[in-house]
């Protein structure tokens, strides 16, 4: 049953996948298609670039050298970060060689030429800089004691400190309108015995409330778009340049209760909608503040090394758990069905009006391989984890026959990959047709003749190479 049905749903799966990977732009596209009016539209749009009522903060961490200890003074701690200093020195050195050239060619050209393509000039300079930097960094590996250095940058929503002050009704309220990075003589200080100060804990502490607030505001404005909740970028610069790696994660808030009609149907299941998580009594609870563990998120993970052409992409669904070494994590333990998106359909045939079938999606893992782009294999689904259930329509939330089988996942996976390839091929074909049509139109040559002409040109280029 599922095997055939897959042919009809894989396009939707692809839309899913891409929508989570490029959530903000997807959200924009959705909004364009179904524009809201007035304040609602603005409010919901703004969710994707930073809510009116939600503040954002950025955290940066650097790796700490192993040799530092609590007996050291801050000056000694800074001094001991030798690897970092070594890298900084090289960056400075290379900058010194290149920046003057950059300034000379770009800034001075403003005066002389009056016209200046900043992007081109800047890109050129950055490339030059990067090439030199890479060359110099590769020299470090010959030195003893050179260790990789890691940076982690996190963006996350944060609740206004003023709000927290007010809510806690603390000892010294309303102080946060004054700069807190200066020498203050009175400030609120935590009383708890578990003062979190590690990088992870700081993010955890400051962002938890913010994520909650952002999620609840999204519900309040009835957002049907995915929206960015938080992002993490990790960089490891290794003395072995090629081993330098990156890791990025987008935490995307899931839209609530959107539906998509499907045109195609097959002989076993007719899919009627994509059902995003929606609580049974959403209407009644419109202003309910969801707990993070309840609120559904998509975790879009990308990672790779400078050397590798393949970049794995993993999309997971569920509620936010904690912020750990690897970024934001999904709620541990069993994922609730209410936290993941699902495809809903009805079987075709005699029982069509009686049963509904849901495919709940837990994970999608994909591989983006730029090297394979030419053969239309750039994006390949590597892993899929579905949870399938069927229920009686009359009792929509009562399900039976739930199962989660690897074979089914593999079947879906295989079909999706075929579709991805088909879609890419289709896009290529469309593009080619457009090009040929355009040339034919401009030159008044027949389409077939244009194709022949292009073929011969490409052949000539290929032979020349």
């Amino acid at each position, binding site marked *: 049953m599922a095997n055939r049905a897959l042919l009809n749903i894989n396009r939707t799966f692809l839309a899913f996948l891409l929508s989570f990977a490029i959530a903000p732009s997807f959200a924009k596209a959705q909004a364009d298609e179904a524009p809201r009016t007035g304040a609602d539209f603005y409010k919901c749009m703004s969710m994707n670039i930073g809510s009116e009522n939600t*503040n954002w903060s950025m955290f940066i961490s650097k790796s700490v050298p192993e040799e530092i200890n609590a007996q050291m003074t801050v000056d000694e701690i800074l001094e001991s970060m030798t690897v970092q200093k070594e890298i900084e020195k090289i960056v*400075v050195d290379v900058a010194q060689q290149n920046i003057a050239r950059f300034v000379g060619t770009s800034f001075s050209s403003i005066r002389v030429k009056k016209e200046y393509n900043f992007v081109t000039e800047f890109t050129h300079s950055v490339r030059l800089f990067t090439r030199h930097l890479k060359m110099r960094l590769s020299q470090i590996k010959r030195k003893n004691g050179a260790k990789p250095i890691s940076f982690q940058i996190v963006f996350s929503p944060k609740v206004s400190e003023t709000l927290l002050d007010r809510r806690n009704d603390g000892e010294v309220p309303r102080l946060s309108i004054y700069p807190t990075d200066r020498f203050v003589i009175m400030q609120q200080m935590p009383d708890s015995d578990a003062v979190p100060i590690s990088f992870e804990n700081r993010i955890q502490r400051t962002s938890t409330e913010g994520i909650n607030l952002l999620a609840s505001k999204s519900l309040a404005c009835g957002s049907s778009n995915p929206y960015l909740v938080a992002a993490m970028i990790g960089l490891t610069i290794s003395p072995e340049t090629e081993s330098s790696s990156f890791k990025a994660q987008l935490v995307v808030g899931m839209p609530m209760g959107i539906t998509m009609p499907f045109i195609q149907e097959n002989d076993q299941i007719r899919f009627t909608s994509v059902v995003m998580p929606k609580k049974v009594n959403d209407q009644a609870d419109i202003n309910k503040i969801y707990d993070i563990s309840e609120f559904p998120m998509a975790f879009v993970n990308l990672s790779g090394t400078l050397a590798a052409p393949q970049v794995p992409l993993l999309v997971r669904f569920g509620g936010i758990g904690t912020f750990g070494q690897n970024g934001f994590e999904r709620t541990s333990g069993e994922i609730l069905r209410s936290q993941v998106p699902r495809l809903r359909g009805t079987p075709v045939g005699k029982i069509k009006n009686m049963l509904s079938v849901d495919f709940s999606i837990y994970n999608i893992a994909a591989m983006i391989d730029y090297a394979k782009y030419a053969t239309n294999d750039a994006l390949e689904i590597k892993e899929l984890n579905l949870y399938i259930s069927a229920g009686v329509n009359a009792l929509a939330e009562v399900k039976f026959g739930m199962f989660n089988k690897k074979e089914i996942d593999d079947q879906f996976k295989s079909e999706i990959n075929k579709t991805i390839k088909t879609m890419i091929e289709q896009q290529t074909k469309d593009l080619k047709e457009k090009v040929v049509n355009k040339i034919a139109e401009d030159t008044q040559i027949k389409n077939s003749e244009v194709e022949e002409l292009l073929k011969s040109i490409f052949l000539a280029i290929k032979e020349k190479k």
Partner: protein
Amino acid sequence: MKTLSAIAITILFSIGAFAQTVPTYDISMPLLLREKFYTSFIETQKNFNSIEKNEALKMWKELQNKQTPKFNYFLNKKLKPYIKSQLIIDWYAHYQMTGQTQKSAEVLSSYFYSLAAFLWEYSENPRISEASREKTAAQSAVALAFQSAQQAETCLYRKTAAAGKSFEALSTILNECAQANAGIIQMLQLASQLMNTRGYSGPNQVLSLTGFTPGNKVEQITQNNYEAEFIHYMAPMTSTVQKLYGNMKVSDFKARMVTRAAALTSSFTVEEGFPLKPSDHLNWILTKKDGQKNIYGSIFKSIENAQQTVFIDVFFLGGSVGASLAKHLIEQVQKKPNLWVYIINDRFNPLAYELEMAPVYNYLRAYSEKFPEDRLMIMTPRIDLKRTAFPPIAEAIINDQSLKYILSDRSQEDLKLQLGFYPKGKSDHSKVMVIDGKNKIGGTAYVGSKNFTDSSGAVAYDEVTKIEGPAVPIILDSYYYDLLEALKEASRLAPEYVSDLLKKNAKASIAQLLAPIDILNRYADRSTVDFKWPMLGHATISIGENNVYGTIRTALPQDIALINTAEKQIIISDQYLYDPLFLRALIEKIQKNQNLKVYIMLAAMEDQLDSAKKFAHIPNISYIDTLKATGQVKAKWKKIPEVELVALKEVSQKYGVKLAHDYHLKSISVDGVTADQAGLCRQRFQSTKELINTMIKIPALVSGSANKDVLTMTGGFREFQVVVYDREATIAHDCLFWERFNDADQSKEIRNETMNLPTELIKAGIDEKMFNQIIRNAINISYGTITGYFVD
């Protein structure tokens, strides 16, 4: 030398005691208190300010926490009764536990002195009612507070050295030096009580270590030479400066200065189109056609009257205006054998005006090098000593040490000049001049927003406060360390320059070179200073500054504290307005006081001279929609009047010079002339008395160099401003504001729909509101600041 506590007691009684004879104000308290933060406490103050060191401190604390479970908990539990600041607790624990006992004593002492200073400040704030219970309590506590801080200081230096590095030592020290000192406990309780008073929205820090200085004569000078007449007069000279002198080096000027007389006649000559005498330059006219005093003219006249010293720190100094001022200064030192001239001028941030700034700096430097015995010195200030104005991430990308390494390389000279700004957002943005600052009679300070280049300054809209009285030496002494650091750096980079200055003036040290402007006589015997300064008027002055080390950064909290005292009206008249904290404080204030009206006039978003620069002051729009949504705010762009715009375009075409007609003010007025009273301003001179009578509570006016933007307010820029508590000064400012605000030729309402976004943005689906928000978020996210919560 008197102790600070004794001084505190003296101050409380001094004004009254001298009231019947010559009223004087004892300036020892403000000067000596601030001096402590520049000397005894400076190292710890610098550490508080260092992004990198505070990050390392966090790392140290994390390690302690791992080593000693519940470290934080016990740290706070044991120390919180005596220290209400996390920063102080953390640094104190670090210093003591790593054996830096001197510093651990410093950090605690600085804290107790700051608490005492807070009470002192509270007790003298002119905007807090004399009758209030809190103010009375603060007044009666000040003397004991300083006395206790002093006792604690002595105790701390002794105990920290003896107590050892253990965790327990931290509370032992405080038990012995604070618990046993009733004054400290009382001071802590009172400060805490004041801040928790219902309705208090004042600062959580000391705004000005120099307190409130009474007895000043002030004059708000508002007139500028922006009319077409000046534009046409000056532009050909501007062009000549750029073309003939733009690339002249110090050595080129020196070669022309064969004699002292030649120094005045060989450059910027009559043949080239410059005036014969500096005073002939039309810009220096003292009064304008309508009889009002002109900013440039007033300053020129004061310099002409100078007897002992002239101190100048101005961001832009150049062009024909700068050249004639330079000649005026040279004329003065040639005529007056006892006159000393000190100039610091930021050479790292010329922006687009290098071709005008370099000639004047190099001309003056050439004279100074050629004739060091003429007591004129000009140096570039140490802008690198401050923290970055950029978001903290800038520190992670490249630290100051690395940057210094790049910039110290002489091969990078071209880079520095071509870049046009200091790579980590640091500058000396002050616009301060002090004439005879050490003289009890004749001492004058000018604090405002005025620059001194043709292209940026001469035809801009600015205001300057002229001050005479006890605030003058306090203002001058704020720049002692700027000059000291500049001279030290000069002696490192150009040792022969400083050694010539010393030798030719028979001085033994840099400190002696600074003696004429050294109010505290640091070079010799401080006890000889007579701190009693004549009170020449009725205005009270409070100083807000971001200082040379970035250790004092009070411009922003001072602004916030001031707007929090507003009852009826706030006027903001500024080039830039996008500091998130300032704006959040403003929005909070508006929401709390539904009767409050706010009027804002800003430099226009688009450059009216250059249609390609539609977003010249783009950050100004980032919060306007939020403010306007409150319904209590009216905001306008400043417009260039048509007749002046025509003149600017003409000279731009004819001479190729672009004279910036910027709205360059940096002022805030609180509870001054209301919108309803604007009509009274029409007969400005006659109606001042009538307006004064309506102002029961003293209004306040901020005048200075600090824009209300986040770059300025982080402390990367050296800034100086004063809050003037004076009715006439506020009226002068407000009346001119209303004249412009109510004139359609001079201002236009800020409307989102008239923003004219580029088509690319509109195609991308970005509307004006969204654009505002993107800009706002860009500021907030990068600086880690917060705003917008109160807007729905």
